[in-house]
């Protein structure tokens, strides 16, 4: 798997701020095969 960093947002505003700050950032929530692709 490709190395990555993980950040947990405290609320919606924080989530938007964090994802806007990094063009490579992705949301993850629940089980998803996004993980397969990493």
């Amino acid at each position, binding site marked *: *798997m*490709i*190395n*990555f*960093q*993980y950040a*947990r947002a405290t609320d919606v505003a924080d989530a938007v701020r964090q994802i806007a700050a990094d063009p490579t950032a992705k949301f*993850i*929530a*629940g*089980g*998803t*095969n996004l*993980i*397969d692709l*990493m």
Partner: protein
Amino acid sequence: MTRTNTPQRSRDKISVPDKISVSLIVNGVETQLKLAPWTTLLDALRDHLDLTGTKKGCDHGQCGACTVLVDGQRINSCLALAVMTDGAKVTTIEGLASDGALHALQQAFIDHDAFQCGYCTPGQICSAVGLIAEGKAKTADEIRELMSGNICRCGAYPNIVAAIQQAMGRS
């Protein structure tokens, strides 16, 4: 001139992030781990906590062998990052029996011979615990539908359905 097969990559550009503290309550035991962010819950259980009852089948969410209960809900642990489950209660196949007595589903699987090789069984049983807690399945058809995320390569499905029906009758 020397040739090398080493790819021309700048290692300086790859920064390895710090490990993250994760606290889990696994089968009733409080557990603290320091994990890389990309560690799946499955790998945390198997490789860091030596709970190898949970099986790695396909490792991409198609077979259900890695099913565990997180806060009572059945999930594919191969598709969950351990860091995402920080603070959660995790129940694996190792945590179902209590006081030396098998869980009703474990006993039912034995009674109905609901496995051959047994590789999918921990996932089948954890999934069935979640299924019964959800309370949606009443008929055999509904059990088959709602257990469809758990594949049995040996084809023990009729016995698995019978075992779940037996356990549902008792719960």
